[in-house]
């Protein structure tokens, strides 16, 4: 459904941020894009969404195909209209608008307004808390509720593919669990395709079908979630589990001794 080949981007015409990445998101699947801070995850999905001018980001080479069409030079609103929606990092809900107005903005691209109520009801089924808060100013809700609103706002547009940028950011572990299980249910029950960008590798791999690991603007590893969870390096560096399968003890850490084998 979404396929990226050899994407290379620069910030301010100088700083090479993505150094030729390729990835594939098949329809109906959850694909995660994992990596530490500054690996280029957000840059990747901002490039896909077309948020380039305001952050001085430029595509040097590479293709982004969505449903077989090249979208790498389209404006953000055209990309959304073609069915690709992003839930931005840090929620970015409209704090001065009510929950319902936020959902209305989310549904802006819906051609047929009569479907709005229907979509809203379906979204409220997954996020019942939002149904109780329709007239509350979004800025006054808790972080978890805001994240739910940010996801709900994307879902009312009924997109074909949703890109979630770190839905776990700044939330309590229990709330994160809840949100991830809702994302998983949405994928299974409604068949949405999801590209999940996360730092929390363990949680992301637990619900996704396939994963990519990014470091320094490159994809250094990819595989099914099963393969990745079994991989020694991933276990060591991303999941924090030592080889014996126990939790890693930080007392006898010898991090520097073990080199990541993809760094040659």
């Amino acid at each position, binding site marked *: 459904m979404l396929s990226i080949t050899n994407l290379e981007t620069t910030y301010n015409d100088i700083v090479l941020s993505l150094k030729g990445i390729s990835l594939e998101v098949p329809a109906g699947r959850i694909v995660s894009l994992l990596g530490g801070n500054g690996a280029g995850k957000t840059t990747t999905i901002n490039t896909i*969404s*077309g*948020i380039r*001018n*305001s952050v001085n980001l430029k595509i040097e080479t590479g293709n982004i195909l969505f449903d077989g069409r090249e979208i790498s030079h389209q*404006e*953000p*609103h055209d990309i*959304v*209209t073609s069915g690709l*929606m*992003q839930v*931005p990092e840090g929620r*970015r809900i*409209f*704090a*001065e*608008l009510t929950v319902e*107005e*936020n959902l*209305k*903005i*989310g549904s*802006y*691209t819906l051609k047929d*307004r009569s479907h709005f109520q229907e979509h809203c009801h379906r979204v409220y089924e997954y996020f019942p808390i939002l149904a109780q808060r329709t007239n509350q*100013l979004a*800025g*006054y*809700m*808790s972080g978890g509720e805001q994240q739910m609103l940010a996801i709900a*706002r994307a879902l009312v*547009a009924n997109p074909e593919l949703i890109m979630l940028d770190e839905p776990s950011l700044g939330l309590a572990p229990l709330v994160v669990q809840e949100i991830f299980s809702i994302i998983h249910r949405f994928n299974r029950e409604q068949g949405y395709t999801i590209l999940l960008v996360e730092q929390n590798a363990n949680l992301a791999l637990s619900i996704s079908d396939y994963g990519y690991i990014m470091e320094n603007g490159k994809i250094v590893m990819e595989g099914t979630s099963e393969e990745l969870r079994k991989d020694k390096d991933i276990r060591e560096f991303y999941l924090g589990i030592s080889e014996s399968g126990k939790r890693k003890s930080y007392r006898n850490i010898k991090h520097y001794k073990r080199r990541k084998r993809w760094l040659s």
Partner: protein
Amino acid sequence: METIIDILFSGLSMGSVYSLIALGFVLIFKSTGILNFAQGELCMVGAFVCYYFATRLEIPYLIAFLLSIAIGSILGALIDVLVFRRLVGEPIHSTILVTIGLASILVALSGLIWGHDTYSINSPFVGKTVSFGGMVFSQVSIVTILVSLVLFGLFILFFRRSLLGIALMGTAEDSDTAGLMGINVKKMRMIAWILGSFVACIAGIFLAEQSFVHAGMAHTGIKAMSAAILGGMQSIGGAIIGGLLIGLVENLAATFLTGFEMGGFHFGDVKDVTAFAIMILVLMIRPHGIFGKKEVERV
């Protein structure tokens, strides 16, 4: 008693004009982040165009009125497309300087086209009065107040109820995220400019009917800016109330303070100073205005 009502009434009618201009400031500032110093000049252009149609070409007043606000709105769209679309992402001081330049250009062009004299609009309301309960009110003021009130109501409804209005508010708050929701941010900016110059033209025509059409009327824009600042620069309701307040206070001060002497200090004509005095006071005491909020924040 009757003088008080008279003062309040003419204050309200001047205040409606300020409110309309302030509304333009707020609409453009909220949606594009540009503080448009040419707002008063847009009023002036509206008044000149209406004068051209109604007085020189002798087109019926209502048609001339509608034509001029249509032309004013197109001018707003043109300004956005030709100038400010290219300035997105530039720092705020450069956009402000561009609006000041734009103001000079508009004044110079109007002078070239219509001359620098003082004219009056050929309007069916000018010079006529209505008596009500023994009191005499000017028709121009009544029309100004009524039309402005209707417009204020429509604007508030538009921003609370319609999808386009909500999309405009969302774009004003966070334009990148609005783009991610599928909103054409460029189009929203253009709509803000169109609405801003639309209200400016109406304000300009009413202002010209209360006095005359001349290039100097553009300075009213700066007074209206103090109304917008009083209202908080972010809030549509604030701009409306701020404008009405400035109009009322200005008229009260003109009546009661002009010629006032205190300890050997003689107050001159204070009318034109009032708005600026209020602006300075607001900026000192409550910089975010009456209705402006710093930001919605969770406590």
